[in-house]
């Protein structure tokens, strides 16, 4: 049996009540083998997926109801029972547990990385349009030559577009680089030159 079918059947065991678990999963395994011979591996896999969907639709709500008391509140004993039953099942199948944990870890890691990149590069706008994060125009005056810092008008983006006179070559701290409202006008300037 393919890894996919095995994982699907094993996952179904967590949803099903004990009274029908072995019978139903065994029937699905038997019918899946028949379909694999008759219709091929892909068709059998699709059939099994459809069966799993209906099993979850049929038995999922019942499983959820078993953890709610008569007043509609979550029953702690039910939840504890669920956790203990899940732990027992997972300990019985260490290989399956490892595969599931690895897949979940990879899935979470890949998603977090991808969306962090997407957020940083595409979704969050730069404070200033048309220039890099550490190179921009501004319309303020230098006031603190020792520090090399500048008091810059908070309306820098608009001013930069309308009456930009100078170019600052410097690095903004990362926390101040992104997000329009978190930016502070006082910045450390490394180089200042006329444009």
């Amino acid at each position: 049996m393919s890894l996919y079918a095995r994982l699907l059947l094993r996952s179904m065991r967590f949803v099903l009540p004990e009274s029908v678990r072995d019978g139903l999963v065994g029937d699905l395994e038997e019918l899946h083998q028949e379909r694999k011979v008759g219709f091929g591996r892909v068709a059998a896999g699709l059939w099994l997926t459809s069966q799993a969907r209906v099993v979850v639709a049929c038995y999922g709500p019942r499983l959820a109801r078993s953890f709610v008391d008569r007043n509609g509140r979550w029953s702690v004993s039910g939840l504890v029972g669920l956790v203990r039953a899940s732990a027992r099942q997972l300990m019985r199948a260490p290989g399956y547990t490892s595969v599931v944990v690895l897949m979940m870890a990879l899935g979470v890691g890949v998603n977090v990385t991808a969306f962090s990149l997407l957020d940083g590069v595409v979704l969050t706008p730069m404070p200033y349009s048309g220039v890099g994060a550490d190179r921009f125009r501004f319309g303020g005056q230098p006031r603190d030559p020792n520090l090399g810092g500048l008091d810059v008008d908070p309306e820098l983006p608009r001013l930069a577009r309308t009456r930009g006179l100078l170019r600052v070559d410097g690095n903004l701290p990362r926390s101040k680089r992104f997000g329009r409202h978190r930016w502070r006008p006082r910045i450390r300037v490394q180089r200042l030159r006329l444009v």
Partner: protein
Amino acid sequence: MRLHEAYGASLIREIEGTTGRRVQAGSLYITLERLERKGFLTLRSGESEPGRGGRPKRFADVTEEGVRALSVHRRALLRIWDGLEARLENT
């Protein structure tokens, strides 16, 4: 199909072969459990079988009460069809 040998997979095969419609195992088991609660069926586990990943079959046996209910249901259905047979024969 002999009723005392009926279990999930064989019932699915039988229904699909007879009606030509796909049967979902989850729905079938929900129905079997409901019939068991009403006393029309008893469900029992068989022996472990290697072709099923070592899992036992779950056999369904129809009780006397189930047979009586089936008989009543059949008579009701036949009465319903009675008035329609003549109409359907002409089509």
